[in-house]
């Protein structure tokens, strides 16, 4: 595989990097939606993710990358019948869903080769299977064909891919973190799909000359000699990786005091977010942040930090108010912080 630009060498874009790290610590937060200007390194950050994540243990040879302790895919269920299968360490999958993909490759379909040559009816897993336990990345998510969006919405919610086609009837786990990036100028996202993203971050072009020079310099250095550049940043990447591993360990021990839950609920009420997913995501993201920073319990500061990315895209909003939603979250935060706690 070609080398990807190292994650830690990305200049600025702290919100985006934090959101990605938080979902790596706690995948149940849901996906990350990265919306913003062109040429800000949106896809660079996501593609860097694969190299950054700690390896995971999976059943050897399993096409769905099953966890050996909880193998649920049809292959494993058929093969195991009680005894444990050998496992191996594999990289966390970061699967690209390209725009021109066809439905059969996304959900999986009849293996044409075997069907034509051997007359065997076999299921060939698609991208959703490959992304199981990892990440599914869609660049230009707002340009994705509607019928693919429908599939994704369903699978992202249920964590399971059900295929009923060509006489095949297969269901397999497809639990993945959805990452989408795009430019809002090119069209909006369907509200249902928007809702599947746990966090949404807005990226902007760095405004200071110094930052911009740094971006160009690093990119230039990478293109001239990818190997040396990656080597140079390996230490930093390792640091992030260790942080993620440590964060995952701490995650279960982080306390969520009632005051924090109340604050989160108050914030969501004040903003009038739809449903309870906002509350849940907000608290989970704050917990992941606390784990990342090594804190024992969730505080108001954690909530405040993650409130904009967790709630920004859930406001029952005037959809035309493109700049306004972040401001509204911040305003509500300020008001709540000022009000005396009950």
């Amino acid at each position, binding site marked *: 595989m*070609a080398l990807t630009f190292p994650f830690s060498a990305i200049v600025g874009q702290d919100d985006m990097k934090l959101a990605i790290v938080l979902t790596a610590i706690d995948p149940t937060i849901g996906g990350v939606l990265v919306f913003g*200007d*062109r*040429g*800000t*390194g949106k896809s660079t950050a996501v593609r860097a993710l694969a190299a950054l994540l700690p390896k995971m243990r999976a059943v050897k040879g399993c096409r769905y990358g099953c966890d050996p302790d909880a193998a649920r895919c049809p292959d494993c269920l058929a093969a195991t019948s009680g005894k444990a299968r050998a496992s191996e360490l594999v990289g966390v999958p970061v699967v*690209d*869903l*390209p*725009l*021109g*993909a*066809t*439905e*059969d*490759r996304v959900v999986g*379909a*009849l*293996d*044409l*080769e075997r*069907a*034509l*040559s*051997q*007359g*065997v*009816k076999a299921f*060939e897993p*698609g*991208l959703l299977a490959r992304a199981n336990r990892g990440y599914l990345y869609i*660049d*230009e998510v707002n*340009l994705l*064909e*509607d*019928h693919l969006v429908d599939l994704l919405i369903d699978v992202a919610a249920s964590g399971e891919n059900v295929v009923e086609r*060509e*006489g095949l009837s297969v269901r397999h786990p497809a639990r993945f973190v959805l990452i989408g990036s795009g*430019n809002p*100028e*090119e*069209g*909006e996202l369907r*509200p249902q799909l928007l809702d599947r993203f746990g966090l949404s971050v807005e990226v902007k*072009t760095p405004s200071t*000359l110094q930052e*911009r*020079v740094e*971006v*160009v*310099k690093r*990119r*230039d250095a990478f*293109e*001239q000699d990818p190997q040396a550049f990656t080597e140079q940043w390996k230490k930093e990447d390792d640091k992030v990786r260790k942080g993620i591993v440590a964060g995952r360990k701490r995650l279960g021990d982080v306390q969520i005091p009632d005051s924090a839950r109340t604050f989160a609920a108050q914030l969501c009420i004040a903003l009038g977010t739809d449903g309870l997913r906002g509350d849940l995501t907000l608290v989970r993201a704050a917990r992941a942040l606390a784990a990342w920073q090594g804190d024992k319990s969730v505080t108001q500061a954690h909530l405040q930090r993650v409130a904009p990315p967790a709630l920004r895209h859930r406001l029952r909003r*005037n*959809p*035309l108010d*493109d700049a306004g939603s972040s401001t509204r979250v911040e305003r509500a935060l300020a008001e709540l912080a000022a009000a005396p706690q009950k």
Partner: protein
Amino acid sequence: MQGDAATIAALFAVDPSGLGGVALRTPACAARDEWLALLRTLLPADSPMRRVPLNTGDTALLGGLDLGATLQAGRPVALQGLLAQADGGVLLLAMAERMTAGAAARFGSVLDSGQVLLQRDGLDRVLPARVGLVALDEGADADEQLPASLAERLAFHLRMDGPAEDEESPEWSAQEVQAARQRVGRVQMAPASVQALCAAAMALGIDSLRASLFAARAARAAAALAGSDTVEEEHIAVAARLVLAPRATRLPPAPPEPAQEETAPEPPAQDASELPDPPLEAPPEAPDDPKTEDSDEADSLAPDPQELAERVLEAAQAAIPAGLLASLKIGALQRAKSPTSGSAGAEQKNALRGRPVGARKGEPRAGQRINVLETLRAAAPWQRLRRSALPPATATLRTPRIVVRKEDFHVTRFRQLGQTTTVFVVDASGSSALNRLAEAKGAVELLLADCYVRRDSVAVLAFRGKTAETLLPPTRSLARAKRSLAGLPGGGGTPLANAIDAAAAMAGQIRRKSETPIVVLLTDGKANIARDGSPGRGPAASDALAAAAQLRAMGVSALLVDTSPQPQSSAEQLAAAMGAQYLALPYGGAQSLNQAVRAVAGRN
């Protein structure tokens, strides 16, 4: 040929995939053919150069299943798409100004990653596709432009609208380019140079960092072409002139009111061509601000970054074409209107067939298209059984490799287009402005929110003075609709007849795309400009009624929102003539307006 054009061809030939490509905006003409021929001679003889027609399908572009070969071989055979075929070479995109946002995104991802991710028709491949693109943009006016996401990924934006100049243009031979291709990987670039390019990009108001990255690569290519192993000032100047200047969204802020004087020299290209050869001795002004952090490194590398930045800027500035200046004055407007896709939007493509949404069992008839892949899939499991049932092969009759029966046939399903496009026709005349233009805008915004929920497209027409103008052609980007309204000034006459005509024309267009138009007219109904532009209430009103009757004859659903302070009989009459629902804004709160549009939409 213009000197810059030749330089661009040579630089691009040195590093096609690194520089992304060239957006060539010119009508089809001899100069364009000449330029393409030049590019062909500069590129290595064995590198592919393929032409991509507009609306090339995904299979042809990205790859897919090769049907002929698959049937022949009895096993899936992959077909390489144009992008993979052109690996290491150049693709020419014809009629690029009409490209859809979706197609632009496909090209964009290939340019970014240098490979094609093929996930189609049961195939799962990653194919190298290090290509450079030449987007042939024949757009005639500002509305027809290359999709911004693609233009962004092409280093050079070249316009060939000037007359061909006789001055001798710089010439490079294929050998020189070949040598430069070898050299370009070794070329060193000083941090100060990077800083100079970034500073120039910022001063010219270029937001995207891709521009700076491209400029850096172009500078390298220029150095390689000149046979130098380090990027010198002149190479940076060339890069700034060719990469940064065409993207400028504003003039550098330094001197107040620089617009006219700075760019007066014409034609700009000539002036610019003198600039890249700055005197080698020390510049006249002593650097007065050496506080930048990079100064230690920079000192050893000759010019001060600040100084360099200024010179680079100068070079870029001199190359800003005169035509661009006019657009700079309305810079904000231009940017707001920046197209997200060419003028042939995705919807237009739908008109023929709609979007394929899977396949279903059935025979292809009445224009339905067979879905070969699904048909094969359906046939595949039965092959062994069917073959054994066939009579054994004889000399005259060979056993077919694949036995397909009638019941295997699948046809492609296309989505029925239920898309609705709401055309807002906003009265911005003086009488309306006095009364409630602001409220009308507010009402439209509310309606837009509703359109968002229903995933409708919207279009905005405004009328004042003597004519109606299209503020926004049908789009799904509601943010743009809102922006186009926000900047709408009020004042002037009320050319109601023209407005209704324009709305009818647009409704016709929308219908031809097999979408459903709804016209929402916000006016006080006080027409005072007739069709021919002459003032007078009487003829204006009768013209308006006649236009309304035509709209009614088209059978377009319409809603008329009366924005006058007191509900007018004239507006009500007009609504009746249009067959439109009538709604007086004074009585209608925001909510009832919403419901009214919904009711009109539901009537279909």
